[in-house]
């Protein structure tokens, strides 16, 4: 294995989040009854014509700008021909020679194996617009195949990477980054189960130091980050084994089986379709003026990398924390809202959002914490709690208790603090009186402490906190206890 190097390129199909299809007004929502979102254009009726959805174009351009790519002033739709029942026209409208986006890059972060990170730039060869196909339903039709054309005509961008990726881990890092980006941009819902973000992996191997690429295979149907990793690892191993066994890799399309974790041959190159691409005469070349592109550029949101750097700088966060908080736009917005509303220390806010909020939501099993979690505890609510820490109404420890109650739906911080009587005791006389009681009740320990057993200080703190139901201000307890114990 160590003499070998993998060369990987990924093709990602990303469904654009438009309300209607790329060339017709039919709806794109997922999960409707089969064929209820198939109009004449979707069904490929005789005489119907495609009309480009301007939103799909805007989203494709948005993507191009976000990866620093060239957005073509003039791009052309082409027809890609093959016969299949879920492809109504006998051709897919795609882009071939003149795609909308070319020559972008994406920076990925990789674990360096020593607790740090390294950075790598992956080239994006191109991204082109195309229409999705429908679905063939092979189950429940007693020997026949059902066709659902709801998905047919859903806008996609196919994002093709350069063969810059060298391991399954890099592939996953690239995919996650890409996934984060398209969701950030609001151009894709990123739902991999529903097929909104799908990946094909081109994999080849070569001996280290060799300049020439090996023969590649294309593995289809790898639709989760974990499957991508498994499929690529399997394919790398398989190819090395074949070559080391004296065999030869043939250029072919392979299918990943998630149940076995293996890939198997689907069709060899000789069987490949001749797609007979030619410019679609029903659609005029798409011209994007410099003005149009600039208007879209102005509307670009702050991108994840920029946001992360800003979080580190403005809030004094560690790279890791900034990375977690900028993982999604919603989480980043949430965090900033908490900081703003609470007026509390930004690092404290970060700890609460990362450790407590995300931890709790994970425990609740809410994968999509972004939606469901934020409804449970809106930013204003968490900020309300942090405000009470900042103004010393409660201690950090009590705050955890309040937070538990908040998660349980018992109301906002102030209501919980009031209902449970958790207001922090800062009144020194009250604390001193508690200390006096503890000292009186523990003469033996007091004597040992005074004879030099410093370790017992913790015991006294614990007793005082217990006596005050944990509400005493810990700083005050420490300070006052030291004075009193000294005698």
């Amino acid at each position: 294995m160590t003499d070998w190097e993998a060369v990987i390129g990924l093709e990602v199909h990303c469904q654009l989040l438009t309300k209607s299809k790329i060339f017709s007004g039919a709806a794109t929502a997922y999960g409707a009854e089969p064929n209820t979102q198939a109009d004449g254009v979707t069904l490929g009726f005789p005489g119907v014509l495609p009309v480009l959805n301007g939103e799909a174009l805007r989203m494709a351009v948005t993507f191009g700008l976000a990866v620093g790519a060239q957005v073509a002033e003039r791009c052309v739709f082409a027809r890609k021909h093959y016969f299949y029942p879920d492809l109504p026209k006998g051709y897919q409208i795609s882009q071939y020679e003149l795609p909308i986006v070319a020559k972008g890059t994406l920076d990925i972060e990789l674990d360096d194996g020593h607790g740090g990170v390294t950075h790598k730039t992956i080239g994006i060869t191109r991204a082109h617009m195309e229409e999705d196909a429908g679905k063939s339903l092979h189950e429940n039709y007693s020997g026949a195949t059902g066709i659902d054309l709801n998905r047919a005509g859903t806008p996609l961008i196919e994002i093709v990477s350069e063969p810059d990726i060298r391991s399954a881990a890099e592939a996953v890092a690239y995919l996650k980054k890409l996934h984060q980006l398209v969701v950030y941009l609001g151009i894709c819902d990123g739902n991999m189960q529903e097929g909104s973000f799908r990946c094909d992996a081109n994999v080849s191997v070569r001996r280290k130091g060799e300049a020439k690429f090996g023969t590649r295979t294309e593995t289809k149907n790898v639709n989760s980050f974990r499957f991508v990793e498994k499929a690529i690892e399997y394919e790398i191993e398989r190819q090395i084994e074949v070559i080391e066994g004296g065999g030869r890799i043939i250029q072919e399309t392979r299918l990943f089986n998630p149940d076995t974790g293996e890939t198997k041959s689907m069709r060899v190159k000789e069987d490949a379709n001749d797609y007979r691409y030619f410019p679609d005469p029903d659609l005029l070349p798409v011209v994007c003026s410099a003005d149009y592109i600039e208007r879209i550029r102005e509307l670009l949101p702050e991108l994840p990398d920029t946001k992360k750097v800003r979080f580190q700088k403005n809030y004094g966060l560690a790279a890791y924390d900034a990375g977690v908080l900028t993982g999604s736009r919603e989480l980043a917005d949430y965090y900033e809202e908490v900081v703003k509303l609470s007026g509390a220390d930004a690092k404290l806010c970060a700890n609460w959002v990362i450790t407590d909020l995300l931890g709790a939501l994970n425990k609740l099993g809410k994968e999509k914490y972004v939606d469901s979690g934020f409804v449970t505890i809106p930013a204003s609510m968490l900020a309300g709690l942090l405000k009470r820490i900042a103004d010393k109404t409660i201690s950090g420890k009590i705050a955890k208790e309040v937070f538990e109650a908040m998660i349980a739906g018992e109301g906002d911080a102030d209501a919980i603090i009031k209902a449970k009587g958790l207001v922090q005791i800062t009144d020194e006389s009250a604390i001193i009186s508690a200390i006096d009681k503890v000292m009186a009740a523990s003469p033996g320990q007091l004597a040992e402490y005074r004879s030099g057993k410093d370790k017992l200080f913790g015991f006294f703190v614990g007793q005082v906190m217990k006596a005050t139901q944990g509400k005493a201000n810990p700083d005050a307890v420490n300070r006052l206890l030291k004075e009193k114990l000294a005698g």
Partner: protein
Amino acid sequence: MHTLSLKELSDGLKARRFSSRELTRHYLDRIGAHDRALNSYITVTAERALAQADAADARLAAGEAGALTGIPLAQKDIFCTAGVRTSCGSKMLDKFVAPYDATIVRKLDGAGMVMLGKANMDEFAMGSSNETSFYGPVKNPWDLERVPGGSSGGSVAAVAAGLAPVATATDTGGSIRQPAALTNLTGIKPTYGRVSRYGMIAFASSLDQAGVVARSAQDAALVLQAMSGFDPLDSTSVERPVDDYSGALGKSLKGLRIGLPKEYFAEGLDPGARACIEAAVKVYEGLGASVREVSLPNAPLSVPTYYVVAPAEASSNLARFDGVRYGHRAEGVHTLEELYKRSRGEGFGAEVQRRIMIGTYVLSHGYYDAYYLKAQKVRRLIYDDFRRAFGEVDLVLGPTAQSVAFKLGDKTDDPVAMYLNDIYTIAANLAGIPAMSLPCGFHQGLPVGMQLMGNFFDEARMLNAAHQYQQATDFHRQWPKGFE
């Protein structure tokens, strides 16, 4: 009634001299009496027509009628008509009832026109004689042993024989003009993008354009006006106001510059037809036009260019007819591949299959550059020729066809001879310019057509030139024997 112009019909309807129902009935009776011999209709929609006529009569009675309200027409069976079989002349769509209306159908229905039925045509508009129709050949009313031309053979036969006052048609390489020439009609193919293609079953998308066949330029102007205009459902339709075609018909031709392309008067043009065209040129000179020779040096490349581009697009456009969702589906198939092969093999006729194969070949890997891409370059040269010519002249005049109508079966065994029928008409489609054919005499008792070609969106000037000629001549008023 069937000898009246559209203007006269409209006046008659508005003056209540006859009702739209009576007029429609009259045409339906004539179809009943004559169409067995001609085969110009695939489907006659009598009930629908009478219902439309009644609605038109109500509009006429309410004083809400337009210039075309209550006037019948035939729709070429290439246009989708909701609830009515739309066959495109093919077995493939023999049982296909369109679920929607083509834009032009919607427009003409909206104008109050009455659809008598769906006109016969070459299968998927591929043919120049109307002999490739699944529904059998159409006969030329001027001689029932001869072809009416194609692909709009049903449209022209119906209008020439008085089985419809006017008809829609389409033109991909001459399918309006050549049949119009062979049946003594006036047929116009407007600029590419002038009339919506939405709902018109595609043959070659970059060449297809809908138009009209009529008994005069005046009639054609009226209907073209109603069909034209930008359609948001067709990305290739052009957003540009439509000129007032009828309003342009009174202008003098003094100062009009007419160019005669020398390539159109070379070898291959029948001397009888040539004589008619030359006489027409004299008429134009008499009307004040100046005539000069122009050159379209790349025009001879039109036919080979067309027979790369059109089949390429057709092979793609016809891929949707796979037996899966609609159209002919072979019975007793066991595999997907068998379903495709047999449904398409059975559903498409020989000429359609030939063009699908040519088109598939020229788009194939390794051949694309040599054929399709090269053809597109030549197409550009042809376009440039016209650009240059229209720098010197206002209209280009030449023959529409090499000769008069030929006999049924004469060219069916020789596809190339058949393809050469369109030698004078194809260039206009490749360039996208408007062109029309109008009657200019008779040779051996059969009609001869001349072709006018105009600059982009110059339909009004072209129609006026045709109209002025028709004011000075009466060829277009001649009727085929037995159909008066």
